[in-house]
């Protein structure tokens, strides 16, 4: 008998499009945890591990982005979707907000705009301002996409996982994993948005107690970006996971550990602390 966790689906309308979200887990003394996925992601794609495991600990809310109307996606569109879900599901009282990758940029901006509503903030593999290194990778991606290259998913997979993780697999297994990635017009727009991120000014205004998580072997959003967030956000502490960008797959349990500890005890480490890795 499998342990099918009870969960509830919800929906809000933002800018004329329906945004779906999922709620699970008990109400208790922890603040509700709101999860925001990253580029080309989804609740199951990026939080397939964190969502159900955290729901054994506390209330968890996660949303799937919906493609907004218009030719481009702007950070403000995604921010509006996250805010709408929070307002619908947690009308009163503060929340803990977590974002991963582009979702971290979204979450940071939400925290800047919502002030005290976002009491705690977790930013995993996010960034402050798109830099040349990221633009180089994104530009190669754009060319492969324009050529409709079959190699694009393999390139994305190559960039997403650390060498050590890839070396635990065979080439065929890595290619099979790449084959599961799906391209779409919405992903194209997210990739375009990735070239234009600049939340430096917003980050200076974030008051939330923040945990920044960088990934040691991240080739897509190298850890210096997380260090920049750690510097820019006043009440931030920093942890690092020896993983590639795809930390939600590669080191899901270690990511869970940080998210769980911080959600339970946001005060465990003071602002400015670099949290030591657990040495098993």
């Amino acid at each position, binding site marked *: *008998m*499998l*342990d*099918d*966790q009870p969960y509830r689906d919800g929906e809000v309308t933002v800018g004329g499009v329906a945004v779906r979200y999922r709620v699970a887990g008990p109400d208790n003394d922890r603040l509700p945890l709101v999860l925001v996925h990253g580029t080309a992601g989804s609740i199951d794609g990026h939080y*397939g*591990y964190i969502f*159900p*495991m955290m729901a*054994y600990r506390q209330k968890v809310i996660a949303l799937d982005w919906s493609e907004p109307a218009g030719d481009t996606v702007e950070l403000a569109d995604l921010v509006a979707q996250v805010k709408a879900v929070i307002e619908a599901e947690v009308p009163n009282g503060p929340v803990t907000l977590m974002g991963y990758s582009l979702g971290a940029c979204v979450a940071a901006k939400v925290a800047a705009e919502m002030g005290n509503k976002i009491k705690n903030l977790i930013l995993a593999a996010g960034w402050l301002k798109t830099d040349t290194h990221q633009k180089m990778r994104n530009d190669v991606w754009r060319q492969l996409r324009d050529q409709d290259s079959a190699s694009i998913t393999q390139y994305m997979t190559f960039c997403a996982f650390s060498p*050590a993780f890839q070396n635990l697999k065979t080439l065929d297994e890595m290619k099979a994993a790449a084959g599961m990635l799906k391209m779409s017009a919405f992903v194209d727009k997210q990739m375009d948005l990735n070239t234009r991120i600049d939340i430096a000014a917003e980050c200076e205004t974030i008051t939330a107690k923040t945990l920044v998580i960088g990934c040691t072997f991240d080739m897509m959003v190298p850890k210096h970006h997380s260090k920049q967030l750690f510097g820019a956000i006043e009440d931030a502490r920093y942890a690092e996971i*020896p993983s590639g960008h795809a930390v939600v797959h590669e*080191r*899901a*349990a*270690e990511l*869970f*550990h940080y998210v*769980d*500890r911080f959600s339970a005890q946001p005060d465990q480490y003071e602002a400015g602390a670099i949290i030591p*890795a*657990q*040495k*098993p």
Partner: protein
Amino acid sequence: MTTVTEILIIGTGFAGLGMAIQLKRTGRDDFIAIERADDVGGTWRDNHYPGIACDVPSHLYSYSYLPNPDWTRVFSPGPEIQAYIRKCAEDEGILPHIHFHTEMLKSTWDEAKKRWVVETSKGTYEAKILITGTGHLADGHMPNIEGLDGFEGDVFHSANWDHSVDLEGKRIGVVGSGASAIQIIPEMQKLASEMVVFQRSAPYMIPRWDREYTEGERRLCRRDPSVIDEMRSEIFWAGEFNFAQRRNIPRFLNEAKALAVRHREDNVKDPELRAKLTPDYEIGCKRLLISNTYYPAMSAENTTLEASALKKVENGKAIAASGTEYDLDVLVFATGFEAVRPPFATRIFGSEGISLDAHWDRGMQAYDSIAVNGYPNLFIINGPNTGLGHNSVVYIIEAQVDYILGALDAIESQKVEVIEVKREAEDAYMDKIDRMSQGTVWLAGGCKSWYVDDRSGRLTLVWPDFAHSFRDENGTFHPEGYMMNSAPVAAE
């Protein structure tokens, strides 16, 4: 004559020795470890059957503070683990603290003396603090088989292997299909003229990603020990990931099951045999086993799988529950250990004179998985709710040792004479464990396993969560759970 010591440790396996090393390292010298056998190593000393190895990669299955660059394989064989433990004891100067051939017979809390009085095979000891490190895999479980006395061939348990018996060309019966059995069976298959495996229930099996480390890799570990830390971290967190299977989350459980099904289908071609080797419960409910050699051995021509228990021995024949009779020369019992009701508990008597075993009449339990109300000044390492289905127990042991060191710090600094866990704290902890256990594969997976106490249906052996959360929750002493009575200050 009574030997008096501040701290007495029972057992010198990974738990007892790990405790002793940390006592020594923290400047505590007034301790003795008693050991019933003639060497350290615990289960790795006792279990020397052909094919013995560990299911946890060696770079993790070792003390974090004593890394070993010289492991020869990802999963090193048993004798190598035993040699490692022995070397740790020597290097850390623990051997002079160990009294070998000294079996604990009865430990009694003496209320007047505020001491444990420990009777052993070598005399009486008195200690202020008693720490058990007797493990889950200490005493072999022998099923009660009718007529076994009348079996004319050799009979022994896997944890007490009789190497004097020549097995070459013999008709060998192996009873069991658990973690020991699946390591023994491929070795017996090579030796036997015929082998019969008595299987009550089929285990789940996944591939063993084992390989030899090259000399270059070992040299690298010696030259740059940070490489070992990285490996430990990688192995540990990969293991932690798999807790989602035990938590019984469909997506992760099904991934594990698919791996096991593929392994079985790749290695067992005969559909009838495959059906017998297919478990009838959910994956992970019993210990998930890893082997690349088990299925080939079970598929070999000289192997017969008897998919029922060994029921009795009659007229020299081994008779299965199915009624089938076998003529055998040797019976090997790979039938596991007394884990749910550990024999040490029958020998420890608390402040009310009741044995721990009787006190645990509805199953083992302890506050923070370490202390029991009514049993003052006693700490149990690797006792109730400390087992894992997905990671290294050495990690759990280290967390418990840290906890005890914290308790000792409090005892010493506050001159505590008697420390005893509060009943309500213990009950609250067990309520938490019960809540955490609900819906896990151990309770909901539809199997009978050593993880669950069948008197209460409670999960008593396993910590039903991540290993890392065990350390987060139970790796630090919690004084609030205890009553601590300090010694009266002597008048000057």
